[in-house]
């Protein structure tokens, strides 16, 4: 049975240099079974490099990473048995159909007899590929290819799944289906490590995210936590009043969770920073109206992951 108290993925001070390029520069994080950990970052940030090291396809220049307690440097064989990797490209063999493709990888992972049959059957069922069993793999649509790739990665029922941009190039429906599959995998106790450019994508399925840029983790933690962290840095609410601007300023300055109250460019406009989520803002607005302040307009600039992303990364390219 899966021990959920032990981290499934542990990365400690991971470094990977390509000549002068520090593709991965001191990254540490942990992912527990049942968790989905999102990795977001711009192109060339080092996502793929980190994932390849975890998948034992590359070696760290310094630092170490563990999968289910096994080091990718010292015990790559043990790591491979417990990890499924879905790269950001699709590859297959000519003249091989969907079942044969999965069957080959099941054999390659040492599954025999009924065990193999069940693994292939379950994977086809899980990914919804059953109707396409006899279709040549080269003739699949992008969405179906991604399903097959995911199926291949999970064929040996690994504890850890490393998915490199699985949603790239998928239509909205396929994305939703993929998201559901990933959630179900997490429910089965898998630790899922997923990277993406589609940030809203990650917000909905990830328990935690890491924002990586130029090989460094700029922020990491639960999505909500990062949202709040960002909010502390300055989330702006704009209020338009009919009059009584002075009273409004005084009222707001005494209110907990509000800071940096300032007069706007227009005379009857105020801006301030507010900590808290939408419901707390609604409560604030209700109290302002109750206090007799003539509020005409109230708008808050919501914090999406895109904001977070843009705020944390500076567009550095290496």
């Amino acid at each position: 049975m899966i021990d959920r108290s032990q981290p499934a993925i542990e990365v400690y001070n991971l470094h990977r240099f390509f000549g002068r390029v520090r593709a991965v520069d001191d990254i540490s994080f942990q992912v527990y079974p049942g968790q989905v950990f999102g990795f977001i970052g711009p192109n060339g940030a080092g996502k793929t490099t980190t994932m390849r090291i975890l998948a034992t396809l590359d070696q760290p220049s310094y630092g170490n990473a563990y999968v289910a307690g096994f080091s990718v440097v010292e015990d790559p064989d043990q790591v491979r048995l417990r990890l499924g990797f879905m790269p950001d490209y699709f590859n297959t063999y000519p003249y091989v159909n969907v079942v044969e493709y999965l069957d080959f990888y099941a054999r390659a992972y040492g599954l025999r007899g009924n065990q193999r049959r069940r693994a292939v059957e379950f994977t086809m069922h899980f990914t919804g590929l059953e109707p396409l069993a006899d279709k040549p793999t080269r003739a699949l649509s992008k969405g179906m290819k991604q399903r097959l790739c995911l199926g291949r990665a999970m064929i040996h029922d690994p504890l850890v799944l490393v998915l490199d941009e699985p949603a790239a190039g998928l239509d909205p429906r396929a994305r939703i289906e993929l998201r559901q599959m990933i959630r179900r995998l997490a429910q089965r106790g898998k630790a899922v490590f997923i990277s993406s450019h589609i940030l809203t994508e990650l917000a909905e399925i990830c328990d935690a995210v890491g924002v990586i840029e130029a090989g460094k983790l700029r922020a990491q933690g639960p999505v909500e936590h990062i949202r709040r962290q960002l909010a502390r840095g300055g989330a702006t609410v704009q209020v338009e009043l009919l009059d009584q601007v002075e009273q409004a300023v005084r009222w707001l300055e005494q209110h907990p969770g509000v800071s940096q109250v300032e007069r706007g460019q227009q005379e009857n406009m105020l801006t301030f920073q507010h900590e808290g989520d939408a419901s707390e803002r609604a409560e604030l607005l209700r109290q302002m109206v109750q206090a007799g302040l003539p509020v005409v307009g109230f708008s808050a600039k919501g914090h999406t992951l895109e904001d977070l992303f843009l705020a944390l990364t500076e567009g550095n390219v290496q």
Partner: protein
Amino acid sequence: MTNPARGPAAPPPAADTSSNQAAEGRWQRWEAALSDRLNPILVKEARQGLKSRLFVFTFFAALLFAWGWSVLGVALLVDPAYEDSRAGLGMFLGYCAILAFPLLVVGPQAAYRSMVNEWEDATYELMSITSLEAGHIVRGKLGSALLQMMLYAAVFLPCIGFTYLLGGVSLLSIAVGLVAIFAGSVFATQLGLCLATMSRNRGGQMLLSVLFLVALLGLYWMVLLFVGVLLLEGGGNAASSPELWYGLFVTLTLLASYGYALYQLTRSRLLFPSENRTTALRLALLVPPALWLAAWLAAMTPGFGPQLGMDDELTLFIFSAFFIHWAAVLLIIGGESGEISQRMRRRVPRSVLGRLFGLWLLPGPRLGYFYVLLSYAGMIFPWLLVLWYTLPSPFSARFRPAEWVRLAGAFWCYLAIYGGIATWLLAWLRRRVVVNMMLAAAVISLQVVVFCIVPLFVEVITASGIPFGQYSPIHLLNPIITIDELMANPAGGPEYWLMVLALPTVVVNVPGAYREMVLLYRTGPAQQPEPEAAAKEQPPEHPFADLAAGTLPSSTAQSSSS
């Protein structure tokens, strides 16, 4: 294991099951068991290889040719003018020519392509992180080539039987001809797989592919020529002579040993850099020279040798082959990256015996250099000494052990000199660039130019008045000219100078080899003590253990929460 999901698959057959069904069930179970035992790559390659257009086309083309040739043969047979006992021989040679083309040219080239495609389609990476070891992959590819060969054999067997019935060709001749073709095919396939690992860029692959095709066509003609000469000389009846058996046995065992060495080379090039890429390969590389020596010793055996008419020519030939083998090994070792992973270091043998014999097999180009020198010397000189003292006098009058020692010693010196300089240079280069086999080949070629070609030019240009046929010391480092001189002139001379030159090239590599050894035995940063280490070594629970055998959950979402 006590896992309920893994229990016996089939329920015990009900009492009233008909015997027919039982037999069918048994057959299916047998088939499943067989398919489980097969190499996964073999299963995959068989599935796609037999469906590939190239195979289908060649197979039917071969069938068509065989059929056409048979019709032609029958037409010739009924022609009374052509009715002589050699009809079978001609038929057989024709079938050989048809059969050899797919086996010696198309098959090996297809194996090469199939390996190269693993990189071009980026399928190799994902395969490499499964439980498949590099050796599985090579063996699987080889196995699928064997499978195709068997299909050809099955088709051509009736034709071959037909030629035998026609007469004019003996069973032995047929067997020798077929063995030559099949052995050649297996070897060429393995060579193709090995070449496919040599270059991972498109240009290099194209070049290798063309060179390989040319080599295969050459092999095709050589094998046909061999079969033709063998049969036509004996008039279709290869005589069962000691020479034939000796030649056949030596050729086949050598071919097998080189095939095995190529297999290990391919495997080592496929292994991850953190794995031990050298030990198995170096062990495999010991086999062919041992066989060369065994062949030589067999030819020296008093009762057997003179019968074969063995002479100094054979000795020179075998010693040269021995030398060339070790020179090639130096090339392979020179191309080693020289990096030793943390993981490797933990598995270094630590017992006294292990250190004594295992050290030379461990990764490290300079240790590899000494591996070559020691293996060469250890293999050949003890035998020479034994022969020196044990050969009966009439025998030793004809064969001169002293000459052999000079010959083997001179070759050893060449290995020491060329190899020593190359090893030293490559170690220097390794600090600056990534060294591979191409670079090692370039360094050795450079030496050949400087030591052999330049002196020839000097001699021609200065026209230094060396009378024709007289040995000049400027060719000391040219093995061909110097060995020729050694063989012709028993008075001696050059070998002492070679020894003088070999000494510094060996000595200069000693510190490097020592450093490599120290590095091997220095383990990395102390491992974190792992209390659960023993428990952890267990393989992961078998896949989808939480699902009941043979059933799929009606909804995966629900099943997963349990």
